[in-house]
């Protein structure tokens, strides 16, 4: 069964360092998302992406964050200068089309900022 894959599964970084989280969405999906879940808290929307541009972003998604789909396959989330409070599980999700509401999630990338 097709699935969303994310790498790395766990990354530890020093505060101030840049981090890139990678996602390979399901191949025929057109809509892409990043969500964040701080330990023990709810899953929060970060950004949605369609047709090579951001559709919507939350207040969390400030100038330190960026997304891109450089090669038509990978969908990346970059955090330019990590802060302690960026420590969280980051989930990538994709959706097939406009008429399907279901998001398919990856297993997540756990980011630990020291």
């Amino acid at each position, binding site marked *: 069964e097709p699935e969303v894959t994310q790498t790395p599964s766990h990354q530890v970084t020093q505060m101030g360092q840049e981090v890139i989280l990678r996602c390979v969405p399901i191949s025929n999906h057109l809509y892409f998302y990043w969500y964040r879940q701080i330990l023990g*808290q709810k*899953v929060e*929307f970060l950004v949605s992406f*369609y047709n090579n541009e951001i559709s919507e972003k939350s207040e969390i998604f400030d100038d330190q964050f960026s997304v891109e789909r450089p090669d038509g396959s990978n969908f990346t989330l970059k955090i330019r200068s990590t802060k302690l409070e960026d420590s969280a599980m980051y989930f990538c999700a994709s959706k097939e089309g406009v*008429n399907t*509401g279901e998001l398919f*999630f*990856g297993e997540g990338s756990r980011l630990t900022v020291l």
Partner: protein
Amino acid sequence: AQSVTQPDIHITVSEGASLELRCNYSYGATPYLFWYVQSPGQGLQLLLKYFSGDTLVQGIKGFEAEFKRSQSSFNLRKPSVHWSDAAEYFCAVGAGGDDKIIFGKGTRLHILP
């Protein structure tokens, strides 16, 4: 704005007992509604979804949920829980189209042997 409320942070039931997890939503039109399950350290797996039609929807692992427009609710039920059902359950709402979905805070389910 969309919002989802899961009033129970933790629920404990005995194995074999029935289960109902509550979810209330706020949304202007008919929403797309979802229940996802997350086992410890794992990703989010879709249990079931409601878009339109029959208000009682069946999902995987023996779960079902009922959409009640008058109560703005989408409660999740299972007639007999198994120890493997212990996990965190998230209700979510979306508008469809290219819209995001918004999650509730989750309900952690504990199963007593």
